[in-house]
């Protein structure tokens, strides 16, 4: 038990080092439903991830001229088709793409156009057409819908509660480092004090319930912590971050594969606000992408046979300017690339159209123009993969979105 305790603290430290935080919501779904056992992981990449580096359009004639010092060289990009490659840091995802288990959404954006991180993240996570229109997250409302009148089994992981998971369904929560080894009396006494407390009562009860599941999910997983540098220099830190991200992926999978484990998971990855010195095939952004690739690898390893029931989606609040700025970085833009992975993903090419980087095509003369609304993508996943009906998606999960048709053919 004490060994586990130490590992969980190490996991916390290293999770923070790699900029990853996670949360998940689980739903008990009736076994008879065709979508029972299907799993969805949503990864929010915070800071405005540069889609033109994640899935560089190396075949677009404007790409190199716009990107100059930060363009991903055509011979370094991992080729997907005649237009697109993947960033060289995403080798694991590229291998999945070759098997038909990864696809890109090259011009994805939320309905928000303010280029504000905070407003755009709100819109991405609430699923509302505009900012401040609701204070619950679309994933929370989706889980409610999936469970109908039944009690919702919900859980979140992470030190704080991400907006995408907040809402009427009390999500449980767990984050590494929380192993409790104190007086057995205290939790019960506190439950009594919280009996009439609408905020602390349900949340605290959920926190306690998660402990047993966490012990199983983390068992046997060795994740490097702050004292486990793998070699010197920056490269050592990066390798440590990769190991941590992969460990987190495996722990999340460890929760999801338990009998009463969550079916829907959300994670956050931060550090994508690359205004200066973002790098090209290597550098600041490349390191962040190595962590994403390692996270996906850990998930796939941990899910094992369940990978075939799973889809993982990576999305960000907005993309970045089409042109490199004056400081070898990029400023806040509009459309970015989304990534879809998983054994349950239907094979196919890119999702949505490519608007091209021609000057006349750029949004407001500076940004990649969106061709897919993030709500359309999420609706498509919830409909095809998890069986949520269209009316519920149009009204309660994504309010006032009847005009936004789900993307089809994803699962």
């Amino acid at each position, binding site marked *: 038990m004490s060994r586990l305790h130490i590992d969980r603290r190490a996991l916390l430290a290293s999770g923070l080092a790699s900029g990853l935080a996670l949360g998940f919501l689980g739903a008990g779904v009736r076994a008879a439903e065709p979508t029972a056992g299907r799993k969805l992981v949503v990864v929010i990449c915070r800071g405005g991830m540069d889609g033109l580096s994640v899935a560089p359009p190396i075949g677009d004639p404007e790409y190199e001229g716009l990107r100059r010092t930060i363009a991903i060289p055509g011979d370094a990009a991992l080729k997907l088709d005649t237009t697109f490659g993947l960033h060289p840091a995403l080798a694991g995802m590229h291998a999945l793409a070759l098997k038909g288990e990864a696809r890109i959404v090259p011009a994805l954006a939320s309905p928000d156009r303010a280029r504000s991180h*905070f407003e755009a993240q709100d819109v991405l996570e609430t699923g509302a057409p505009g900012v401040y229109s609701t204070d619950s997250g679309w994933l929370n409302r989706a889980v409610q819908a999936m469970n109908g009148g039944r009690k919702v089994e919900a859980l979140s992981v992470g030190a*704080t509660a991400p907006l995408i998971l907040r809402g009427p369904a009390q999500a449980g929560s767990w984050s590494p480092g929380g192993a409790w080894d104190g007086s057995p009396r205290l939790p019960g006494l506190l439950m009594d004090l919280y009996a009439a407390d609408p905020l602390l009562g349900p949340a605290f009860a959920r926190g306690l319930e998660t402990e047993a599941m966490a012990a199983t999910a983390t068992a046997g997983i060795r994740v490097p912590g702050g004292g486990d540098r793998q070699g010197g220099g920056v490269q050592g830190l990066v390798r440590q971050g990769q190991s941590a991200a992969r460990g987190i992926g495996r722990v999340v999978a460890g929760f999801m594969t338990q009998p009463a484990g969550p079916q829907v998971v959300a994670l956050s990855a931060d550090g994508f606000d690359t205004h200066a010195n973002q790098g090209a095939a290597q550098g600041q952004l490349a390191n962040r992408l190595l962590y994403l690739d390692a996270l996906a690898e850990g998930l796939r390893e941990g899910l094992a046979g369940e990978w075939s029931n799973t889809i993982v989606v990576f999305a960000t609040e907005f993309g970045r300017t089409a042109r490199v700025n004056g400081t070898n970085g990029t400023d806040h833009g509009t459309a970015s690339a989304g990534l879809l992975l998983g054994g349950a993903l239907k094979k196919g090419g890119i999702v949505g159209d490519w608007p091209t980087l021609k000057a006349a095509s750029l949004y407001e003369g500076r940004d990649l123009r969106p061709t897919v609304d993030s709500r359309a993508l999420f609706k498509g996943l919830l409909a095809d993969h998890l069986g949520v009906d269209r009316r519920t998606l149009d009204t309660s999960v994504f309010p006032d979105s009847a005009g936004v048709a789900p993307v089809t053919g994803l699962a």
Partner: protein
Amino acid sequence: MALSKDMRAAVAATRFGLGARPGELAEAAGDPQGWLAAQIVGRGADLGLPTSELSAKRITDLRVFRQDRRQMRQEEAGPAEGEVSPDRDPVRLAGRMIRETGAEDFLQRARLAATTPAAFRERWALFWCNHFTVSGVKLVTATTVGPFEREAIRPRVFGRFEELLIASTAHPAMLLYLDQAQSIGPNTPAVASLKRRPQARRLGGLNENLAREVLELHTVGVGGGYTQADVTEFAYCLTGWSVGGPREGERSGRFVFRQAAHEPGPRTVMGRRYADDGVNQAAAVMKDLAAHPRTARFVCAKLARHFVADNPPAALVADLERAWLASGGHLAEVARALIDSPHAWAPEAAKLKTPYEFVISGYRAIGGQPAAIEHLAVLRGLGQQPFAPPSPKGWPDEAAHWAAPDALVKRMNWAEAFSAAVAPERDPEAIARQALGARLTEPVARAVARAESRPEALSLLLMSPEFQRR
């Protein structure tokens, strides 16, 4: 408004302050509002520094260190990764320097918060530190968050908002954090000279990060009526606002204005035209932004949300806004309006304490203070890593963010460990009365009295719904 003085004293010390220390409620009970008003003294808060000498030294040290690292790598002809001995590994050494200076600064701040008899003044200062966030998550700012707060923010928190805005924007830590220091006007001698040097590693040009965040986060707010064109125009005004480099002698690590990088010409921001007046062009924009009614509204709503409730009463926001506009953004007047507003004194505590507030108020309750940075390690586990908010927006203020189920279990773990260390020689019932006063409810008092040990009693108090809120 028939609140007893005892209840008003409890609200004053917990909602406006940082939690009552032993004896504090008795001190405040005579005149709770007067007790708060007396903490508004002069123009600044505690720990203020009159010059930016400390940050200049920290920035210079870090740069010298990075140069040494590059030089060492060249001399050693690039040893394979992993073969550098640990005591010469530059990343390790830099990491140690950053950890030690940051930890010292943070501990100093936490000890002030735990011990100050003027905790309203400290909470007020912390609000502005968070409003003008510089985060230590970037290497370039990792050692300058503490100095930034002490040099740019603390000396001005009861002065005019305009001064605070300009001082924070011009501070080297902010210029580095939001990438302003390297932003160059595209039609300037500085860009031309970069273009003549094909070996130059960068292109030179505009970076609009700081301009956008000043508009969005520090002044008018995201709905404040500006457009992308306004962001770009303001970013042109700011070109030239930079930080002295290591070869610039006395100017190293300090604010400098580089005329050669300043985009020439008049600019229009939010409908107003600004002549090209060098360094004063951006300052003129900021003066108008500070005086903009949308700024008053945005910041007053944020103040009300921080001090009183996640969804604050509109009447309270209106009271603050009135004081702001009547005084031209004089923050001492706004602070007085806050404690004078009847809408700020509802007896129900609506705010869940952030992790920092919770831990600090625990120390205050026992009349103690953290002895070492390790005692504050819990903040990281609760999602509030010292000096490292995840974005320029700063730490969130809403209960929904902090009340994750797992975080409550971790709060309990901390309360239990803290109580085990400090409770044996203390009287938990007295602590409960002194910390919560009239806010102590019967069920909590009973639970504390019936606990089977002093540590259990103190844990129950710290974790009680009343102590978790303010």
